[in-house]
């Protein structure tokens, strides 16, 4: 039973495949675009196409970028002896937003998860180890997510890098800024207690 014209239905279905978009939102987006001026829709279409044609993976850090090497790896102001290892390109953005990190990144494109069949060979781990061998590194910060998969990945990398003179660190975990102690869950609070520091 076809109630809507095929091009409209096709777009609704494409939208509905996106994360966070249900059938209702997909319909709303489609009809919004249908009523939009043509140049606006064309700009969106171009942006979508360029996402695949104009994007490359940086051969050093494996972040998605417009050029290779990427803007961060190619920046002479950046401390090349400091690598922050993250799971996803979005994590790079998150750390960049802090504005205090002046080193480079290494994007693994996932975390180890035996259940999902993701092993060391499926991530950019070997590339990281190569990078550690060929670059003069001072420190590697393991900034994988604070869950089992992220911890497992960090442990795996730390072991794979041994023996080595490079300092290996893991992001601290604990209380969020502006938070209330009474609202923190026990697990986080316990970690914060374990990781407490001398008052300076």
């Amino acid at each position, binding site marked *: *039973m076809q*109630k809507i014209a095929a091009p409209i*239905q096709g777009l*609704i*279905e494409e939208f*509905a495949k996106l994360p966070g978009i*249900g*059938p*209702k939102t*997909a*319909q*709303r987006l489609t009809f919004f675009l249908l009523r939009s001026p043509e140049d606006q829709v064309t700009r969106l279409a171009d942006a979508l196409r360029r996402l695949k044609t104009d994007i490359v993976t940086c051969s050093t850090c494996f972040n998605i970028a417009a050029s290779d090497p990427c803007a961060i790896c190619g920046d002479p102001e950046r401390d090349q002896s400091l690598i922050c290892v993250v799971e996803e390109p979005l994590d790079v953005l998150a750390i960049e937003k802090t504005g205090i990190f002046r080193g480079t990144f290494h994007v693994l494109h996932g975390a180890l*998860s*035996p*259940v999902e*069949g993701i*092993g*060391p060979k499926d991530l950019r781990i070997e590339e990281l180890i190569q990078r550690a061998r060929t670059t003069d590194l001072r420190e590697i910060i393991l900034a994988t997510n604070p869950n*089992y*998969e992220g*911890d*497992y990945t960090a*442990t*795996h990398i730390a*072991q794979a890098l041994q023996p080595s003179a490079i300092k290996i660190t893991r992001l601290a975990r604990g209380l969020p800024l502006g938070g209330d102690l009474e609202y923190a*869950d*026990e*697990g986080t609070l316990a970690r914060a207690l374990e990781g407490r520091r001398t008052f300076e």
Partner: protein
Amino acid sequence: MYLEHLELVDYRNYAELRLELEPGAYILAGDNAQGKSNICEAIRLLATMRSFRAGSERELIRWGAPNGFTRVRALVRQAAGPLKMEIVISAPPMLGEYDGVGYLDQLTPPAASGMHKKIRVNDAPRRALDCVGLVTVVLFEPTDLDLVSGTPQGRRHFMDVTLCQISRGYCRALSQYQKILTQRAALLRRIRDNLDEPGSLHYWDEQLAQQAVPIIVERSSLITRCLPTADEFARQLGGKSLTLEYQPSFAIPVDQSVPAARFALMERLAALRKREIIQGVNLIGPHRDDLAFFEGPVNLGIFGSRGQQRTAALALKIAELAAIETETGDQPILVLDDVLSELDPTRQAALTHRIRTVSQVFLTSADPETMPPDFHMWATRLQVRRGTIQPI
């Protein structure tokens, strides 16, 4: 504690139900398939945040509910003060349903996933895991009578549900432990298939030991605490002495420290390494534990008569009630779903006598006339008929 107010909207076969309740015993009488067990399930949901019957939470939403959600609201009077609880479970629209824009046809993705559960406690939103055990409910349903002769899984489930209501830490450890087990089992199979190295297991051994030790310690202490009450009640039911024996797949000596126990468990895992890899399963840990019932030297699970097994199961449930009360300082709500009719008159009398001291009890029965006569004297009878409840 007791339920003062219970409100169901589009829950199972209840379109709308409001019950004002008092401490004491309630007999929910009614024919089959009228909604007696649904009330039990809703009360239990307040304690565990999960249904004990539904395969999918979609089943809880009344068939044909106009807005695709169900709501359970309750006001519970506790020793510590009143507690308002609201659970709303909603489902995405299904095929052929009206979703506000149009009738959904082929656009709709398979509707199995995407159930939403929102919980509010005293009007503040809370996570489900943090709400388990705020209200405590001991449920006894007919399948519990098979606790002694049934699967080890059923007995582990008993320990878990009881402990989750008592201890937030246990609940959290158990949920973490499940995640670890799944990953570790998958890793064992990957190693067997040469996709990963055995060295990768070390991390998961550590995590497993960390969560397993408190689970084992808590279970062991629960069974020890249940023992005197269970034994006493079993004797009241006409049985001989009853002994409960927690049988962990990895035992921790009483005087062993937690770090030492963790270390011992990791050593044991290392020793089992080859077998675990070949079989591709987690061979030891709380997921392999069991609980045994003894009358003297006789293992009731194996040699007990049906009557002996029922007595033991009943005694364990009464012990659970006492254990939760001791631990939380408040008496749980007791729900007996269609259990009385499964017992002989002597046991019925002993049970109804025992539960007089419980602050609030709900009993369902299709045939309330068979209940002990004196029980009717002090219990309030409610008639359940096609999703409505009327006092008699």
